[in-house]
């Protein structure tokens, strides 16, 4: 039995986290993500969970990393300025291979920018924002239902790959209320525990080590320094560092086809829209209102790792139109993988592209 609700995106995110077994939230409130913290603060204590309002966002992500090492599913939620503050410890989570979920309800930047308006301006920051090389996963919901479903998925992916996973939503979906079907139970795939006799950072065939949960008898050294398979610092061995970083990148990038989550519409089309997040809704309206024009559409629910092979699913494409609520961040990634001309349609200012605007762009290319 599913339950029908009329729910805000941020509330759906918090409810999904609880359903997925999240029992720790460390955060610092910031518009337009605050409702997630508020909802977790109300709900977690009644579910034997822990909510901590930290002193800032660096502390928030640090608390989440600590909670995760006790075996808990842990998350934080923030927006632009808070996300920037988290960058250093996001790298620490990457290097220590700590599963956690970071929700970014994107607003207009740079700096404090537009606190109450929507943007998708942090899409490259979530991929490259912390120093050094690493692989990452970013999910982008286009509806309140997808906010729920993708938040659950984010926890499973974080545990599967032992990485921080980003739910890169925005003010449109975070604050929008709409009809949602909440399932009785959700699929929870727990972390693979460390096998007896295996060193704590010896990876399996998939590049991911088993997890030695604190309090289960393991003695593990956890450090942000380059470390050997025991977890001990070894920061001057070039080959060891190269192998470690290559594994951190490859465990995600090599699995990108398995991770990919896309919807293809009209693969025979010549004019194809590519979207993630709210512009998806605008494009669906354009396709619905203009069936005779036979536009194609690729929705990416997971943007990172980028599933470049899916571009080949539109063999007749003459143009890829990429509407984004930023200055063209993912359009650049698409250009890197295709010879088809890419038309970036950036929109800044906090408002979603309208169907008329996107139809005009497509008509000009016909």
């Amino acid at each position, binding site marked *: 039995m599913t339950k*029908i*609700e*009329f729910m805000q995106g941020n509330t759906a995110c918090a409810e999904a986290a609880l359903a997925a077994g999240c029992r720790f939230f460390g955060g610092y409130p910031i*518009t337009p993500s605050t409702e997630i913290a508020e909802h977790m603060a109300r709900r977690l204590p009644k579910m034997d969970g822990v909510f901590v309002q930290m002193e800032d966002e660096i502390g928030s992500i640090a608390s989440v990393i600590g909670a995760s090492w006790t075996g808990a599913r842990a998350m934080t939620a923030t927006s632009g300025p808070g996300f920037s503050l988290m960058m250093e410890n996001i790298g620490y989570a990457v290097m220590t291979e700590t599963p956690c979920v970071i929700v970014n309800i994107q607003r207009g930047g740079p700096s404090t920018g537009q*606190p*109450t308006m929507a943007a998708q301006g942090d899409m490259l920051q979530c991929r490259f924002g912390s120093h050094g090389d690493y692989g990452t996963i970013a999910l982008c919901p286009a509806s309140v239902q997808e906010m729920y479903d993708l938040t659950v998925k984010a926890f499973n992916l974080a545990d599967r790959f032992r990485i921080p996973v980003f739910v890169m939503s925005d003010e*449109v979906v975070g*604050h*929008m*209320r*709409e*009809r949602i079907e909440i399932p009785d139970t959700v699929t929870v795939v727990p972390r693979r525990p460390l096998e007896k006799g295996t060193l704590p950072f010896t990876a399996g065939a998939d590049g991911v080590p088993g997890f030695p949960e604190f309090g289960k008898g393991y003695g593990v050294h956890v450090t942000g320094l380059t470390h050997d398979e025991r977890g001990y610092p070894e920061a001057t061995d070039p080959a060891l560092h190269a192998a470690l970083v290559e594994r951190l990148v490859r465990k995600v990038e090599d699995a990108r086809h398995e991770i990919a989550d896309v919807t293809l519409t009209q693969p025979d089309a010549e004019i194809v829209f590519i979207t993630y997040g*709210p512009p998806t*809704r*605008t494009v*669906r*309206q354009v396709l*619905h209102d203009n069936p005779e024009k036979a536009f194609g559409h690729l929705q990416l629910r997971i943007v990172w790792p980028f599933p470049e092979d899916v571009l080949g699913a539109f063999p007749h494409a003459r143009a890829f139109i990429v509407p984004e609520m930023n200055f063209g961040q993912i359009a650049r990634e698409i250009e890197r993988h295709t010879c088809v001309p890419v038309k970036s349609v950036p929109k800044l200012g906090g*408002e*979603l592209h*309208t*169907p*008329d605007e996107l139809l005009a762009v497509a008509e000009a290319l016909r």
Partner: protein
Amino acid sequence: MRREVRFSGFGGQGIILSAVILGRAAALYDAKYAVQTQVYGPEARGGASMSAVVIDDEPILFPKVTHPDIYVIMSQQGFEKYGADAPEEAIMLVDSDLVRSRPACVCREIPATAEAKKTLGRAIVANIVMLGALVTSTGVVSSAAIENAVLDSVPKGTEELNMKALQRGFELGRRGEA
């Protein structure tokens, strides 16, 4: 059929809550689809606040309101920012004591704040009076649906006051039709 409703007033009047209640009525009690969105600034109170609801029999693709059919305007600043460009075929409900201007479209003058203060004793339920008037003057959701949605959304102990406000709104909305 897609219908777009835009609410505007000043922060603190319950403009966003009005839209949430309307969306809830449509989505949970009239078996339709609804999306509610909003625009607000960083101010806590005052300032023009706007919220919007799309209601449709089919799933809603584009979630934002671009061409409202129905306006509910509860402040002069709200009218100027979000109501002045209403097309002629739209219908607008104005809180007649708080909005001086009148639109070019069909206009229903609803003395919601005055009624809320005088008859009901609490200005805070003016938005519920407006919702009642909205329902009987446009039929955008059913009376039963809005009643249920109001009851879901108001604090315990205020149900009776809010139901009275809604009923008063129903009457004021019907009166406008004549």
